[in-house]
């Protein structure tokens, strides 16, 4: 186990293993999302209150969940990179940040589109989760801006890791302090006592979308980390050897 992890942490091995792992995330992910989109749009019955407008949850819920998941991945790998000085962990947080920012944006955009027919407004400052999601987007933007401002990769890695950790401590506090305001947002339906308060015909497509999005996120993350590793190791020998081997050239 430890040996495997140790091997995984070395860039050339990771680069190869990630290539093999990629399809295992991408294809089941595409399959689940395909089923979820079809079932969510055509098979699930319209909601008795919200009509067809509720169908946006099939994108909104997975995106919102992944926006937070990506921050956790970013912060945890930043911590690992800072403490054990593992280069690969830093590459993971660098790759996770833009993905997380896009999922946050997607959650905000779908939430806002859903808000138009439901609340009669595109944006509602009184809704705590919409507001804390916006703050999360700013946290991602700050993280990426700090990374961009520092030229040296090692320094950028470590400085942004400190920021990610400080941010991770603050995320729950921000969430609950924003929640202090009275809430317009839907109460939790999925995770609550006595099972989800949702018809199975609506529930299964949602679960499929959540798992599908997660797998696709994994695939995208793997791909981005591979690119990041390749870029960081561009002066290393194994990269040169690999490129020479693939073009059929000799040294």
């Amino acid at each position, binding site marked *: 186990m430890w040996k495997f992890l140790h091997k995984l942490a070395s860039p050339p091995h990771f680069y190869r293993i990630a290539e093999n792992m990629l399809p295992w995330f991408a294809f089941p992910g595409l399959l689940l999302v395909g089923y979820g989109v079809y079932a969510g749009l055509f098979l699930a019955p319209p909601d008795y209150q919200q009509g067809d407008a509720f169908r946006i949850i099939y994108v909104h819920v997975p995106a919102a969940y992944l926006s937070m998941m990506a921050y956790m991945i970013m912060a945890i790998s930043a911590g690992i990179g800072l403490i054990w000085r593992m280069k690969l962990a830093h590459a993971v947080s660098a790759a996770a940040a833009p993905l997380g920012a896009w999922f946050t944006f997607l959650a905000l955009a779908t939430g806002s589109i859903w808000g138009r027919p439901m609340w009669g407004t595109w944006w509602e400052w009184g809704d705590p989760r919409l507001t804390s999601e916006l703050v999360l987007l*700013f946290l991602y933007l700050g993280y990426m801006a700090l990374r961009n401002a520092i030229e040296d990769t090692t320094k950028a890695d470590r400085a942004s890791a*400190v*920021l990610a950790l*400080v*941010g991770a401590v603050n995320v729950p506090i921000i969430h609950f302090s*924003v929640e*202090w305001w009275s809430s317009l947002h839907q109460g939790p339906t999925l995770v609550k006592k006595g099972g989800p308060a949702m018809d199975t015909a609506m529930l299964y497509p949602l679960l499929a979308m959540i798992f599908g999005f997660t797998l696709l996120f994994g695939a995208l993350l793997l791909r981005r980390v591979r690119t990041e590793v390749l870029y960081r190791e561009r002066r290393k020998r194994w990269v040169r050897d690999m490129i020479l081997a693939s073009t059929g050239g000799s040294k």
Partner: protein
Amino acid sequence: MSASDEQLPGIWLGTSALVKRDLALVIKRPGDMLNPLFFFAMVATLFPLAVGPAAEQLQFSGPGVLWVAALLATLLSLNSLFLGDFEDGSLEQLLVSPVPLSALALGKSIAHWLTSGLPLVLVSPLVALTYQMSLAVTGVLMLTLLLGTISLSLLGSIGAALTVGLHRGTALLSLLILPLAMPVLIFGARTVSLVAAGDGVAGGLYFLAAYAMLMISISPFATAAALRISNE
């Protein structure tokens, strides 16, 4: 103070020397302390000019406006927290000193709060007066600012340490710190609004105090780590 304390510069000695030095620097150059205060007063002046001088409106939006102005003024003063030390090389002396860097970082934050947060608290009643706030509301405003600016100084020192020596540091610092400062702003401004509406304030003050405690325990270490990274 015993003889051994003088021979071996202790944590207390080093930190208090740093605080005294920063205070002496501000006394020599009062602009560093006064400019953010003027900025605070000016932002507070802009709002009545922009939204109209109706007393009810000012009373209603006053707590929020003054808190946003205080937050921006604190950010303004944070830019120069480590800049002078970085430019004249004394930051490197701090890094190699035998006193733990986290203690020195705490000293920097204390000096920063004494020269930015505390003056803001003392000036705020004057501005609150022009916003037609009652005495009780002004008192709560001062209390929230007192507790809130401690958190802002500590939180900001992490950001200042991360961006010290970067070209685009000014805008970047705001981008890093503002999202993190939101709980302080929410609880600071809402507590003042609550007391203006006749509600209890204990909860909000407890939260601000707890957040300040959290920052006191996290910020010195995070700032020290960030200073080491920035000066590698």
